[in-house]
């Protein structure tokens, strides 16, 4: 018989933790709902590669299933994968990590970030983050019991956080600086000098640096500076990365942390109680990605670079000034000249021309006046999207709001 009684209610109004209750919903979520009401949209709002994971990597994943690798692995990840990671980090960035004690394999770099923050934050500790930034940074800091301290970045300084701006916000409670370069949503890449300035601060004030380098492989004509490779930085940096962007493996949920043993031990403690181990199939695929994935990575980077040049040039042509992003796969043009704010712009563009971009404010208050356009999509889609945006801007000039 069906139970037709209403579900029992409770008088308690504190069923949801205050921390979660007051956490603002992701700015992207709101837009997602609007988007699903419009058909035939060209989306430049996606934050993942349009390539499917290279076949040899997928094949390694299915082979692992065929062979019955369906059990947990060691908490820290398969020893073979950690060895490959240590080798990879040394080969590309000249940083040395002990595969047994200094590397932890995680369920995507998102888990890695959460672990790092939870492992280091005491209630009320402050973590400094440049803004605009990846949507999860402030939220993850709050969930870990810390206080996100936002440092504005802008097009004048190419969206690279300035050491003086950080220094002005350092207090007794400051525990760490969280940086993510190459950056989502701006595409900014930090130079050695800029990174060195932040390293200097970390030393001067005895701060930790959490460096999210998920987009490290996607740089165009510049070198990626691996933060722990800077002198004296390995001992105070928690390096976070993964395979999602470099090897087009977002859905596999596989990432890693590299840091000194004391940090890895702390992170692993949380990881062993919460995640146990990263997906085994994804770990097997990641081993293959590291062993034989280079040529595919290079091919994808070359393809992104062509699309990047096309998008940046067209954005500037149609009157949306865009600083040149040297990394990731995003362009972050200014829409200030249109007189609209970024949410208005994104909403109208979607409804009138069926092109989706992400309002800059989804990435924090300092994203106002910008929108994020992802160029990890086909050249023909980019061209068509830019044609529509051109039309949209001309129209809005004729009929200003």
């Amino acid at each position, binding site marked *: 018989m069906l139970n037709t009684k209403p579900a029992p209610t409770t008088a308690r109004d504190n069923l949801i933790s205050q921390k979660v209750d007051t956490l603002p919903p992701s700015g992207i979520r709101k837009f997602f709902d609007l988007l699903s009401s419009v058909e035939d949209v060209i989306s430049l709002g996606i934050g993942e590669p349009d390539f*499917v994971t290279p076949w040899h990597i997928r094949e390694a994943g299915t082979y692992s299933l065929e062979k019955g690798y369906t059990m947990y692995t060691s908490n820290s990840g398969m020893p073979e994968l950690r060895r490959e990671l240590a080798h990879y980090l040394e080969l590309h960035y000249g940083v040395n990590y002990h595969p047994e004690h200094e590397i932890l394999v995680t369920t995507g770099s998102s888990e890695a970030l959460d672990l790092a923050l939870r492992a280091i934050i005491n209630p009320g500790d402050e973590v400094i983050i440049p803004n605009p930034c990846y949507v999860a940074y402030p939220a993850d800091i709050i969930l870990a019991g810390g206080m996100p301290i936002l440092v504005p970045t802008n097009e004048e300084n190419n969206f690279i956080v300035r050491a003086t701006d950080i220094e002005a916000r350092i207090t007794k409670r400051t525990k760490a600086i969280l940086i993510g370069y190459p950056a989502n949503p701006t595409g900014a890449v930090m130079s050695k000098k800029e990174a060195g300035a932040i390293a200097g601060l970390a030393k001067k004030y005895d701060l930790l640096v959490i460096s999210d380098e998920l987009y490290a492989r996607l740089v165009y004509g510049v070198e990626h500076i691996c933060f722990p490779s800077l002198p004296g930085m390995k001992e105070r940096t928690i390096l976070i990365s993964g395979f999602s962007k470099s090897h087009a493996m977002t859905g596999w949920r596989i990432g890693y942390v590299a840091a000194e043993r004391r940090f890895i031990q702390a992170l692993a403690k949380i990881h062993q109680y919460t995640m146990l181990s990263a997906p085994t199939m994804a770990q097997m695929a990641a081993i293959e990605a590291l062993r034989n994935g280079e040529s595919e990575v290079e091919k994808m980077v070359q393809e992104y670079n*062509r699309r990047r040049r096309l998008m940046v040039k067209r954005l500037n042509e149609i009157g949306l000034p865009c600083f040149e992003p040297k990394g990731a796969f995003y362009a972050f043009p200014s829409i200030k000249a249109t007189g609209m704010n970024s949410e208005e712009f994104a909403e109208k563009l979607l409804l009138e021309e069926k092109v989706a971009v992400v309002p800059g404010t989804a990435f924090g208050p300092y994203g106002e006046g910008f929108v994020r356009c992802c160029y990890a999509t086909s050249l023909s889609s980019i061209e068509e999207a830019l044609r529509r945006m051109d039309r949209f801007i001309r129209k809005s000039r004729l009929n200003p709001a």
Partner: protein
Amino acid sequence: MKEIFEILEQNARATPEQISTMVDKPVSKVEKIIKQAEKDGTILKYKAIINWSKLDKEDIQALIEVRVTPQRDVGFDAIAEHIYQFPEVYSAYVVSGTYDLAILVKGKNMHEISSFVTEKLAPLERVQSTVTHFLLKRYKENGEIFHLPKEINRRLPITP
């Protein structure tokens, strides 16, 4: 420079303007390189890849292994040239292994191909033997996959 040709190989209709943006070189330079390549035979031709099965006009194709007697001074070249000039021959290669020439032939039907083999190819003096393999289904040709399943969008329209 290689990149210009890679782009054209993927899309022969890419304009010099588009290519110039993609490779970050002036249009005039891209145009010059393409002109030169057309002249010196680096670019042989611009063709479309047609999926004839969509029109129900698909040719029959066969891969033929040919064993030949090489000739003094010219090796396989003379006999290969003799063979590839037949219009039925679509592609021709000298290969290593148990036979010498691999040729792809096209015909409207099986009869056309078999008469080419029995009346033209096999009787050639320097041809020792032939083995004909009729192609049953095309999966991939020149890097392009045929019979692609309908494009499905696996990505969510907005992700962080």
